[in-house]
C-alpha cells in the first residue's frame, strides 16, 4: 500500500509543530485512508460498469452459478464486455465452470486484476485465493464483508457492459453489502426450480426487499424440463412413462424421430412464482446434464455447444433481461 499522506496536527502544542502519531493512531489513520480510497474507488467502478445484475436464490442447489456463468457467456456471445463477481465466499465454484481452475489473481500496484475465462469474461472469486480447493473458508461476518468490499473496491475491472454478481443462497449479509457498496445496481435475477421447497420463507423476502430496495428484474426457472429423444417407425404413436408415472404421448415424424420434454420436478413453478410476486418471468432453462459435465471439465455448455438448446434458452433469458434494463426511464413516461 502507498504511504498514507496523513499526520497528526496538534494546534495546542508549542509552535504548532506536527507530532508523530503513536503506532496505533497511525494504523487507524491508514485503515481510514484505505477505507476512504476504497469507497471512492467503488463509486468510480460503478461508473465504469454500465449494468450490474445480482443473481440470487432463496435455496441452495438451484443452479445459481450455472445461471450466472450462462448469463455472462450469453452476453459475451453477443459481443458485450462482461465480468462475473463470485461473492460465494465459502463455496466459490464459478472459476471451475469458467475453465479457470487453479488460476491465481494478478495484483499490480495494489489493484487486483481479474482472471479471464471463456469468451473473455473477467472473473473474480474467492477460489483464486485458496491454497487448494479442499480448504474450507471459515470466516465470520465482518471478515467476509471486508473481503467483499475489497473484491468490489480493489478490483481493476476496466470498462464493462455487464457485471454479473453471483451470491451464496439465502438472504444473508452478502447481498446487502454489495447493494450498499456498489451504486446503481440494475436489479436482481431470482433463480428457482419448479419445486415447492425452492419457495422462500416470507420473512426473509420481507427483510430482504426492505433492506436492499433493488428491483427484481425477474425470475428464471432452472432445471425446467428434460427432453428425451428417440426414434421408431415413422408416424407411429409413442408413449413414455415419465416421473411420477405420468404418461406422455407423442407421434414420430416422417423420419421416425420424436422428442418429449419431461418435467423432472414440477411444471411452471418459476412462472407462477413470478406471477405471484408481480415480477417478470424471464424464461425457463432446460435440465441439461451437459452442464454437470461442462462444470466438471471447465468447458461451459454454452462454449461447447454455442448453438445448443441450453445456449438458445440462455439467449432468450438474456433478451428478457436486456428488455427489462434497456430503458431505465420507462416507456417514454414523463413524470412531473
Amino acid at each position, binding site marked *: 500500500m502507498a504511504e498514507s499522506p496523513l499526520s497528526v496536527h496538534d494546534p495546542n502544542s508549542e509552535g504548532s509543530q506536527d507530532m508523530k502519531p503513536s503506532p496505533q493512531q497511525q494504523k487507524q489513520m491508514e485503515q481510514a485512508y484505505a477505507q476512504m480510497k476504497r469507497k471512492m474507488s467503488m463509486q468510480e467502478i460503478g461508473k465504469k460498469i454500465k449494468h450490474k445484475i445480482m443473481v440470487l436464490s432463496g435455496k441452495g442447489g438451484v443452479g445459481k452459478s450455472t445461471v450466472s456463468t450462462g448469463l455472462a457467456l450469453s452476453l459475451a456471445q453477443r459481443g458485450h464486455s462482461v465480468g462475473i463477481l463470485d461473492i460465494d465466499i465459502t463455496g466459490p465454484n464459478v472459476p471451475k465452470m469458467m475453465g479457470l481452475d487453479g488460476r491465481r489473481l494478478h495484483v499490480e500496484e495494489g489493484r487486483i486484476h481479474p482472471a479471464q475465462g471463456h469468451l473473455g469474461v473477467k472473473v473474480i472469486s474467492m477460489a483464486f485465493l485458496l491454497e487448494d480447493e479442499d480448504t474450507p473458508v471459515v470466516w465470520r461476518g465482518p471478515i467476509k464483508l471486508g473481503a467483499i468490499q475489497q473484491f468490489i473496491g480493489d478490483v481493476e475491472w476496466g470498462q464493462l457492459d455487464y457485471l454479473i454478481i453471483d451470491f451464496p443462497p439465502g438472504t444473508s449479509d452478502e447481498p446487502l453489502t454489495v447493494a450498499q457498496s456498489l451504486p446503481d445496481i440494475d436489479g436482481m435475477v431470482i433463480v428457482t426450480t419448479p419445486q415447492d421447497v425452492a419457495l422462500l*420463507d416470507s420473512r426473509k423476502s420481507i427483510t430482504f426487499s426492505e433492506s436492499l430496495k433493488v*428491483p427484481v428484474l425477474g425470475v428464471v426457472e432452472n432445471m425446467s424440463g428434460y427432453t428425451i429423444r428417440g426414434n421408431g417407425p415413422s408416424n407411429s404413436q409413442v408413449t413414455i412413462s415419465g416421473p411420477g408415472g405420468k404418461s406422455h404421448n407423442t407421434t414420430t415424424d416422417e423420419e421416425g424421430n420424436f422428442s418429449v420434454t419431461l418435467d423432472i420436478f414440477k411444471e411452471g413453478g418459476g412462472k407462477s412464482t413470478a406471477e405471484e410476486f408481480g415480477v417478470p418471468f424471464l424464461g425457463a432453462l432446460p435440465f441439461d446434464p451437459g452442464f454437470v459435465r461442462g462444470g466438471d471439465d471447465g468447458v461451459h455448455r454454452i462454449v461447447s455447444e454455442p448453438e445448443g438448446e441450453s445456449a438458445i434458452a440462455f439467449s432468450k433469458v438474456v433478451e428478457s433481461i436486456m428488455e427489462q434494463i434497456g430503458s431505465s426511464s*420507462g416507456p417514454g413516461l414523463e413524470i412531473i
Partner: protein
Amino acid sequence: MSSNPPELIRLERRDLDMLLTYESGDQFTVTYDDIRYSCPCAKCSPLRNEDESSKSLRRQIEALSPEKPKVKPVGKYALAFEWDSGCSSGIYRFERIWALANNQDPDDGRAYVHGVW
C-alpha cells in the same frame, strides 16, 4: 386486471393524487392513499387478506401526513414510490397502476400467499 395495459405517457404528481395520462389520451386520477393501500410488497400485501387487518391498514395510511412521493421508473415494467413516512418497498407494475386507475382490484380478488422467489 388487464395483462396489457395501454402505455402510460405522463404522470403528474399533485398534492393528494396523481393525474395519469395514457397514450389514448384518456386521463385518470389515483389518490396517494389508494397507491399506499395497494402496496404490493410482501409486508403490506398480506394485510389486505383479512377484513380487519385490511381496515387497519387503510386507517394507518389515512392517518399519515399528506405528502407528494418521489416516483421512479423500475426498468420498463413498473414504478416505485418513495415516501418520507410509511412503506416505500413496493414496486408497482404498470398493470397494477392501470387497475387502480380504473377502480379495479389490483390483486384481482386473489389473496396474497407468502412464498416465493
